[in-house]
């Protein structure tokens, strides 16, 4: 994986747009696009701030693979929950379903008990314990919260970014 691909991957995992990153760092959106396409590299002085908003370290930006593991983020560098995303990936006998839910929607679903079910594909979102997930997120936990592999080969992954 090139540095550009890694930067793009980490930005997406952090749920940020190129526009947001460029505005936050005081560079043009074209500059961010060039970094991610390996046309140029970010200035070394920007690396600590990039690492901070991507919830990673400068070392990981330069050397490590984009991490998917769980992490507890310090309150001072936590993202606004309204900008966070819950990813649900389900693979079942060749069918793949990826659902990316803005956390604002997850909050609404966790608060609403009047709905019978809320299906996307063959997944009933109402069966997911969103309250527990939100409780973890409010404590600063992000990353892969759930990973299940069933005996018949199906997998379910729930991740927060």
């Amino acid at each position, binding site marked *: 994986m090139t540095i550009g691909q890694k930067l793009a991957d980490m930005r997406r995992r952090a749920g940020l747009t190129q526009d947001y990153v460029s505005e936050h760092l005081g560079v043009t959106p074209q500059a961010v696009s060039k970094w991610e396409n390996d046309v140029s590299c970010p200035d070394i002085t920007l690396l600590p701030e990039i690492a901070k908003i991507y919830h990673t370290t400068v070392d990981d930006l330069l050397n490590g693979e984009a991490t998917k593991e769980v992490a507890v983020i310090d309150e001072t560098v936590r993202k606004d929950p309204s900008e966070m995303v819950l990813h649900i990936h389900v693979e079942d006998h060749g069918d*793949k379903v990826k659902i*990316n839910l803005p956390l604002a*929607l997850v909050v*609404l679903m966790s608060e609403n008990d009047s*709905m019978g*079910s809320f299906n996307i594909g063959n997944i009933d979102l109402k069966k997911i314990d969103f309250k527990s997930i939100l409780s973890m997120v409010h404590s600063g936990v992000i990353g892969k919260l759930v990973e299940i592999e069933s005996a018949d080969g199906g997998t379910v992954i729930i991740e927060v970014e």
Partner: protein
Amino acid sequence: MIKIHIKEPEGEKSIPLPYFAIKSFLLKANEVTGNREDTKKFANEIVKALRSFGKKNPGFVLVDIHDKEGTEVKITL
């Protein structure tokens, strides 16, 4: 506006869907199981949250389905 892209072996189509249509779907889907007023409020809030997130993140992929028959469905904001 939400966009639904469907790619099948026979061809592709893209369906633009206004947010108010999503509200109608949510109401219709839950009119039997849910309380009407609560469902209406819930549908309004869901649409408001989607609209707000979509404005900040245009092109955000909400749902991406690939089935084993080769059909792909992508719902984007």
